[in-house]
């Protein structure tokens, strides 16, 4: 039995009177890709900063790579790579210089790393100055520096927020390669669908506390699809079906959120009603939370 790479228990961090983290738990096992989800302002970045020893915890226990991130930050950091959500670069250094600098600061040798290959794959121009890069390109600089070496742990804070779909695919491939060689990844995001193809387990937080945690399979109820359809005939009766929520009919338009098991049944009903337009979107985390809270409140009653 190997010990977790990240182990956070009852973490509390307050800024003045505001409790950004309020008894948060997070466990990341070796070799897994762990999705760290939450809406904006939930405390994801704060947790990561405590994990990196940038912020001092007020209470709770934090273990990173088996050590104390506050006491031995620099030593532990040689074994991990970090990409912040909002990358800021030195305006007068070139992208290539920054990549090499960050690799060297982690104690690795850029010449022996995969930097060339990654610069190519992310189609990054390494001769541009830091001030000239767009948000997505700044993110690429940090990603290349992080993925070029073989760290034990990758901490990625909303790493794809500035990337286009093509680059997002490159990023997904790179993460898969990292995990294939045994790396552990903590991947934060505010969109479940963005990370669900990559992650093994997720922890969902809200207002500094854990709302849900477990394997993707165990969170089936989060896999609802929001369906909006326009029908020609009379709208089908969906409210009675177990697993269909939030049914709303407005004129010839029907909307509802559907659990995976009953999706075929709903689609059949819509087809029978003469569907002319159909959109299905994964629900936002906020919608899921609304569901989760309402369901829980309902169950208690």
């Amino acid at each position: 039995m190997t010990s977790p790479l990240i182990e956070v228990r009852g973490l509390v961090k307050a800024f003045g009177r505001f409790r950004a983290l309020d008894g948060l738990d997070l466990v990341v096992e070796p070799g897994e890709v762990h999705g760290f989800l939450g809406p904006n302002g939930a405390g994801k970045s704060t947790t990561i900063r405590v994990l990196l020893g940038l912020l001092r915890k007020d209470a709770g226990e934090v273990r990173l790579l088996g050590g104390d991130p506050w006491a031995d930050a620099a030593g532990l950091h040689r074994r991990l790579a970090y990409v912040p959500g909002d990358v800021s670069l030195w305006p007068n250094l070139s992208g290539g210089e920054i990549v090499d600098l960050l690799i060297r600061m982690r104690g690795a040798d850029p010449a022996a790393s995969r930097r060339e290959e990654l610069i190519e794959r992310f189609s990054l121009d390494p001769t541009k100055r830091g001030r000239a890069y767009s948000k997505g390109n700044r993110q690429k600089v940090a990603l290349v520096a992080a993925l070029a070496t073989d760290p034990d742990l990758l901490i990625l804070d909303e790493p794809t927020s500035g990337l286009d779909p093509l680059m997002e695919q490159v990023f997904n491939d790179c993460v898969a390669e990292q995990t294939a060689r045994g790396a552990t990844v903590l991947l934060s995001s505010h969109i479940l669908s963005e990370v669900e193809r990559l992650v093994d387990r997720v922890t969902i937080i809200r207002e500094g506390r854990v709302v849900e945690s477990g394997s993707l399979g165990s969170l089936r109820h989060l896999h609802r699809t929001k369906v909006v359809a326009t029908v020609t005939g009379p709208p089908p009766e969906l409210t009675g079906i177990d697993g269909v929520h939030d049914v709303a009919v407005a004129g010839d338009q029907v909307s509802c959120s559907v659990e995976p098991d009953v999706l075929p049944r709903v689609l059949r009903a819509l087809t029978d009603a003469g569907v002319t337009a159909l959109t299905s979107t994964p629900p936002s985390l906020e919608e899921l939370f609304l569901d989760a809270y309402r369901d829980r409140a309902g169950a208690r009653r």
Partner: protein
Amino acid sequence: MSATGWTLLLRLGLRRDRVLAPAGIGVLVLMSIASAAATPSLYDGPAERIHAAEAINASPAIVALYGPILDVTSEGELAMTKMTVLYAVFAAVLFVAVVRRHTRVEEETGRTELIGGTAVGRDAPLVAAGVEALLLAGVLGVLTALGNVIGGLDAGGSVAFGLLWGGSALVAAGIGLLTAQLSASARTCAGFAAGAIGVLFVLRAVGDTGPQWVSWLSPLGWNTQVRAYGDTRWWLLLAYPLLALALAGGAVLLRSRRDLGAGLLATRPGPATGSPRLADAFSLAVKVHATTLLLWSVAAAALGVVFGMIAPGVGDLLDNATAQSIIDELGGALVSAILSIVAVVLTYFAATVVGHTARDETDGRVEIVLATGVSRTRWFAATAVLALAGTAWLLVVTGVGLWVGYVAADGPGIGNLVTAALAWVPAAWVVGALAALCLALGARWAALVWVWPAAFLTLSLLGDLLDLPGWLTGLSPYAHVPLLPAASWDWGSAGGLTAVAVVLLGVAWWRFRARDIG
């Protein structure tokens, strides 16, 4: 030209400057009032006052620093000796800073882009900054004129003096607007502006001590030539707004020829790979500040050589006891007078380095570095060492420059000018360490790093003028520096100041290790 929405930006600018502008203008006006009010008590009657003015004119060194007194019978001209040129330079720095803050800095941070997406014209930031400078220059002029009248100087001269200060501020704003167009980097733009002001100051110093027409090339030379409290050249006051308008017009023209965020000087592509030497916090700090340090070094050397060449003129006066005492009243012998100001200015290099590290933190770059194998101690040490070593280096460069100039001008004997410059190092270190302590308390306290040197300079100057108690003026580290070469090296003060700096740095390091980052 499209300046739609500039009034909104002007209000935003005034709101953002609600502390900086009143504080800067307040200190300048206060200094002027203090100088005006203190002068009568310094001299026993007109005869002694005229003698003092003549003594100043007879010393090329003092003239090079402050400019000549064109009307020796005028009380106001004597009272404003330091104010006319030297303090106009401080006003100029303030106005360049204000203008740059609302133009190039905003562009570099991307906030201009945010504004540009709204219904605001392309030239609106430039126009708003220019109009704000005009308003502030007006306030500075009016308050200075009023202040000097309150200080006991005659009204007509005070109006002229207020106008010439306001005019200098306007020209500085014009320089700020124009230089802000040149480079995509706000720091490079600041370097250009500082260089321009430095050249104007040296032109005036050369003209005032040599061929007089050279002084007329510099607006700072006009400050003396206006003869505010003598036979005033009112027409010359028109030259300031005209020059400022030309500079601002040039800025608008340059703005129309470049893209948002770009400079006129094209950015060259950088290397695709990093040098193996660029591998830790120290080499990063050196790399980031190398150009700045080089420019500062050139400026310090040039200033040193120019004043070193003027310095031998002091020797002619040494047999005249009265004149010597008057020169002492003006801030000691030339070298110490220059060094007392240069040391404060060079301390701003330390402030720049520390302020830059604070920006690294608020922008999120420190987060990236501290997430690697770089420890907090190394990061902090890199900043502190570069700040303090850089300032010491610049003082040495100034000292060597003084010595070279002095030797080149066949000065009598070879003075211990390098030692004289070194004497200021411990005091500059204390102020640099105070800046580091501000950083250690939190990035939001780092704005204070810009305040310390100016505050201590103001304190010592006010102390002279108002005869403040010794314990109060003694709060300034600069007050404990022996005035070499006239005085001799004092191990006690050097050791004491260095010890204070070390203690401050120790406390700062201890705090920085224990606080939250970002």
